[in-house]
């Protein structure tokens, strides 16, 4: 036997069995069979191919047999062909030179008489993902799109998308999008139509940031004509395609209320579909269509309840989870509508904990006067649950309900009963809650303190709980006879206390206790301060020193600092702002709902749709922790940015809005921003003072169509909202000016998106926008295209009734800001033309 040719093991991973000898053995056998026309040769080939595929699947690199495989591919046997396509598709990308070998036979197969083979070959050809073979794709694709068999057309349509991802220019040069559009509106096969829609949506969404035309195309997908065409055929589509079409319809902007009702009547039966995804997609359509009609919107909620609750109970737990996540969102938006359905959210013993957790949150949200008793009783059952995390969640849920002010009396009793259960984790959770309750309802202190006083601090280990206990000891040291001694005990064990949080609380509690009962606490405080000053943790050290010096300076001042009269907390701040919640609602029926985060927080930029990109409204008011020290925008900004959210809906969430005024941003941060409420009146005055170099600029603005200056901007600039806010806070205003907007521009500015898209085409990107006619506000940014990380930040307030734009520019490189402003102005002047 001749020695096998040299095998080039290109990327065989060391952890895998190399299989070198097997591969060369296979090569040899394949070579022998390649030319054979003997009867039964196909059978042996199948065997060999199967082995090759198995090796490939388990991770052995069989790419060395590439040429032999291709040689054997000349066959009419479809199974052999399929295996060969599979093999080629797997290795083509890492061996582009070899892939060239396959083009020939794939192209030939694309012209086969059998539509199955034509389709399969075309699919494989497009899946090679080798950029330099793109030229060979165009003609098989164009004939594939006109093929007589819907199977081939269906494959060809997705082939266009594959081509687009390899080479967008080739795709546009061959005018494929236009062919697809035509096909979508005329093809008799539903799956072909559905695939066209998949492809067009993806292409135009990706292109929308780049060109105006793509935007127009994207909007024609949402035109009444297209929407109605798809609606009328919706029953022909399979369930997945129906989801897609419904998703598209949910973005449609109906012309009038008749339009809305027509669509809803037509889709009513989709709510009865057995596929939960179709039902959810329909629900999204209903919710979004009726956004502007408050009372209908309410009725829609009522109508949706039954199908959603059925879906939760049927199917796998994964499906229930997906549905429950959506129900959760709706419950959070309108808790009172679900208050009578609370029993549906009772946990089953066998529910997985991810489902139990959602159910607990919903039970918390829908608790009101009428059902609190039942819900709390049920939650208390879970407190003894074997599943400790769920038991903890249940206790927290009880506490949250108490903070919602329903039937507090009974709940406090229950919480105190928890403390008597003497389970460490129950005690720990309950202590934290009792602390929060006392901050809100100081009138309960008497009952609580009596019980809390009995808890031995030795049984409390969790830092949060310990801190809570210590806080109570300090705060209520007057009513707890033992307080100084318990504290003293704790301070003695200072060095064993690992959590800085606990040590901080210990310092403060000792101070408070000292100010109330000086003789008993003096020794303990001394020990605490000494230990604190010697502490290695910076905060603990600083606080100890502060207290020490305060006491040295004046005890009464210390009293005022440490023990001021407290106001009961009325509302605890919600972690999520209402804008973020609205964004999630806009992205109903996507992962956003499951993660409870808008998509910009978890997807890469290139995988987002243009909507998601251009309207990053929520970013500007993320929870504080996520962007420490970032300046917070003024409250009035927030209102304006809210845009589409309808506040009267959010019975539950409106509290959050109310919670924010309590937070006062540091003054110097705020002053760098213009409070928007006074924008229209005070703004011109402010700017006329601050604008310098105005003559020069005015000169520019006199020109009808100013020449774009030489400054080049990076069309793909990226800036995350956190950085934007930081920069905005740091940089000074380099230009502030009012510029006129053309009447055409004003006319086309009905939504902020119109301007955003226009500016994006000029490489000026929007990071946040909001407002309603006649006032719009935009935060934009751009980057110099010279490799430097030099950014320009713009605040632009447009008043359409006066046709003026108030522009403020801040720049990393202030010297370039004039050039940029000119560019900005010229871009703005072309808006609407």
């Amino acid at each position, binding site marked *: 036997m001749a020695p096998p040719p040299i095998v080039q093991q290109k990327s065989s991973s060391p952890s895998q069995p190399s299989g070198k000898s097997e591969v060369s053995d296979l090569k040899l056998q394949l070579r022998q069979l390649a030319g054979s026309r003997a009867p039964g040769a196909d059978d042996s080939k199948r065997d060999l191919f199967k082995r090759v595929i198995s090796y490939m*699947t388990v991770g052995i690199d069989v790419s060395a047999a590439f040429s032999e495989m291709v040689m054997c591919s000349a066959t009419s046997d*479809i199974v052999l062909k*399929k295996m060969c396509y599979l093999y080629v598709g797997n290795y083509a990308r890492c061996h582009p030179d070899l892939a060239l070998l396959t083009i020939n036979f794939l192209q030939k197969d694309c012209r086969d008489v*059998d539509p199955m083979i034509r389709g399969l070959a075309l699919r494989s050809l497009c899946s090679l993902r080798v950029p330099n073979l793109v030229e060979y794709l165009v003609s098989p694709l164009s004939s594939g799109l006109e093929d007589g*068999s*819907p199977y081939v057309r269906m494959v060809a349509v997705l082939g266009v998308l594959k081509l687009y*991802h390899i080479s967008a220019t080739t795709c546009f040069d061959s005018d494929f999008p236009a062919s697809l559009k035509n096909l979508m509106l005329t093809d008799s096969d539903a*799956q072909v139509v559905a*695939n066209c829609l*998949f492809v067009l*949506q*993806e292409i135009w969404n990706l292109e929308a940031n780049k060109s105006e035309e793509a935007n127009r195309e994207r909007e024609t997908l949402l035109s009444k004509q297209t929407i109605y065409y798809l609606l009328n055929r919706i*029953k*022909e*589509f*399979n369930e997945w395609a*129906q*989801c*897609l079409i419904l998703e598209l319809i949910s973005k449609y902007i109906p012309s009038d209320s008749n339009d809305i009702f027509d669509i809803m009547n037509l889709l*009513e*039966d989709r709510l*009865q*579909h*057995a*596929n*939960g*995804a179709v039902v*959810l*997609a329909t629900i999204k359509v209903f919710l979004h269509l009726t956004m502007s009609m408050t009372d209908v919107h309410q009725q829609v909620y009522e109508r949706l309840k*039954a*199908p959603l609750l*059925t879906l939760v109970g*049927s*199917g*796998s*737990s994964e*499906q229930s*989870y*997906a549905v429950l996540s959506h129900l959760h969102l709706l419950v959070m938006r309108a808790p009172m509508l679900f208050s009578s359905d609370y029993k*549906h959210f*009772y946990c*089953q013993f*066998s529910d*997985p904990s*991810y489902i139990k957790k959602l159910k607990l949150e919903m039970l918390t949200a829908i608790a009101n006067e009428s059902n609190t008793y039942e819900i709390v*009783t*049920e939650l208390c*059952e879970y407190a*003894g*649950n*074997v599943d400790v995390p769920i038991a903890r969640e249940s206790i927290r849920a009880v506490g949250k309900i108490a903070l919602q002010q329903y039937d507090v009396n009974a709940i406090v009793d229950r919480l105190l009963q928890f403390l008597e259960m003497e389970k460490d984790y129950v005690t720990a959770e309950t202590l934290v809650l009792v602390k929060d309750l006392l901050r809100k309802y100081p009138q309960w202190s008497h009952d609580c303190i009596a019980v809390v006083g009995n808890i031995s601090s030795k049984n409390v280990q969790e830092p949060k709980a310990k801190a809570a206990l210590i806080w109570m000891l300090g705060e209520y040291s007057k009513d707890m006879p033992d307080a100084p001694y318990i504290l003293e005990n704790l301070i003695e064990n200072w060095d064993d206390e690992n959590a800085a949080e606990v040590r901080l609380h210990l310092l403060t509690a000792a101070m408070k206790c000292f100010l109330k009962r000086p003789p008993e606490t003096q020794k303990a405080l001394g020990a605490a301060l000494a230990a604190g000053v010697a502490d290695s943790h910076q905060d603990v050290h600083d606080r100890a020193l502060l207290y020490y010096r305060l006491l040295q300076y004046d005890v009464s001042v210390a009293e005022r600092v440490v023990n001021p009269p407290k106001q009961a907390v009325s509302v605890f701040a919600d972690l999520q702002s209402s804008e973020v919640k609205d964004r999630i609602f806009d*992205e109903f*029926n996507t*992962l*956003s709902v499951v*993660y409870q985060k808008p998509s910009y927080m978890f*997807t*890469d930029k290139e*995988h987002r*749709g243009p909507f998601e990109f251009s309207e990053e409204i929520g970013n500007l008011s993320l929870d504080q922790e996520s962007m420490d020290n970032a300046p917070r925008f003024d409250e009035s900004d927030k209102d304006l940015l809210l845009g589409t959210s309808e506040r009267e809906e959010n019975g539950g969430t409106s509290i959050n809005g109310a919670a924010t005024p309590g937070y006062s941003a540091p003054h110097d941060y705020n002053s760098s921003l213009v409070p928007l409420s006074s924008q229209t009146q005070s703004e011109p005055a402010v700017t006329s003072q601050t604008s310098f170099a105005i003559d020069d600029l005015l000169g520019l603005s006199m020109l009808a169509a100013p020449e774009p200056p030489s400054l080049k901007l990076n069309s793909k600039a990226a800036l995350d909202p956190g950085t934007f806010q930081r920069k905005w806070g740091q940089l000074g205003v380099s230009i502030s000016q009012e510029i006129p907007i053309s009447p055409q521009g004003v006319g086309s500015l009905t939504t902020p998106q119109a301007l955003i898209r226009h500016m994006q085409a000029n490489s000026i990107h929007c990071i946040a926008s909001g407002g309603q006619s006649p006032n719009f506000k935009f935060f934009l940014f751009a980057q110099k295209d010279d490799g430097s990380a030099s950014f320009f930040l713009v605040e632009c307030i447009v008043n359409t009734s006066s046709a003026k734009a108030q522009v403020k520019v801040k720049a990393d490189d202030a010297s370039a800001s004039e050039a940029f402003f000119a560019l900005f102005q010229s871009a703005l002047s072309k808006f609407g033309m």
Partner: protein
Amino acid sequence: MAGAVSALFLLDIKGRVLIWRDYRGDVSAVQAERFFTKLIEKEVDPESHSPVAIDDGISYMFIQHSNVFLMTAARQNCNAASILLFLHRVVDVFKHYFEELEEESLRDNFVVVYELLDEMMDFGYPQYTEAKILSEFIKTDAYRMEVAQRPPMAVTNAVSWRSEGIRYKKNEVFLDVIESVNILVNSNGQIIRSDVVGALKMRTYLSGMPECKLGLNDRVLLEAQGRTTKGKAIDLDDIKFHQGPFDSLAACQGNVCRLLIPYHLRCVRLARFENDRTISFIPPDGSFDLMTYRLSTQVKPPIWVEAQVEKHSRSRIEITVKARSQFKERSTATNVEIELPVPSDATNLNIRTSMGSASYAPENDALVWKIKSFPGGKEYMCRAEFSLPSITAEDATSEKKAPIRVKFEIPYFTISGIQVRYLKIIEKSAYQALPWVRYITRAGEYELRLI
């Protein structure tokens, strides 16, 4: 944005990749494997982890079936509900092909698995997921496949889920009405939640292109048909219709639902169906789910359980359980199983029953009392005595945990009272078809938190 997935993985129980299909080339198998193995290592019980997780900008969604995980990886913001459902559909298809979906069956059938994955999803978008359609162009026995393959009819969009020219010697239809009772009882013996989920499942062995007409005693259906509802009608809260590959059905006004006929006939018959609101449809061949419904009116629990716990001493405990059947005497519950939780450290079990047999199932920390046949209106007893170690572990202070769970089946009985009033089969050759209707009520989530 609709959202396409990037790849589909089939993983073994330890989270290693068995086979995967890379649809868009923007995720790596190594990365996915690393993430997933870490995820399931972390969890003692893999089922307790949420089926959606994110790592490094890639969203993973997965389900488990026997010893295989099915997982998608996606970079876009996908439709979670639809993808999880899609994965279940993939399971169905594999089950159709390999009888059972498990690691072995996948390993034995790499090629078919690849073929199926290619047809079910293209570039991350779901395509055909109906086993019936797929099996027309991907044959299990690849070796004996005919060369002259044509794309199946559904793919060429000629008709639907039912092929022409089906022939049976004996034309029969089996309709099963299966109701599951979900009950939750609290420690005071109060029913805090009860509902009924019903399903109509059919198996058809009918020749030609038959049209089935089904009449139920649903109140809304009856009223819509202008019939008087004499006592027996019931109110269904919500109905869902299961559908063939091409959505042929269910146009509803309010709660009234009817199944339409496939669209190639629709234009002809639509007018008639506007007026006549019976459920009427052309069934697929073989077995399928016709519809499901839900009823949240409170029902009387068919099997009621009372439990009493007596502590004779610190270490001696006696549980007395009474089970009562609360349905008509002419019905009989079969295969009744009552699971009583006992502490995990119980020893010396002594069990006596007045009917059936009871045994200790230490793996569930439970006592299982089985009664083969439990006629209506009867009451049986079970008494169990056991010892606990006199020294208790520190964390065992409260043994509050599992509820009593009950399983049973009651044939020839629907707890909701739903009835099939008629099931007519109309075919142009006018053959006689035999409709068989069977009712069964069984326990769903049936929990009593009594102990």
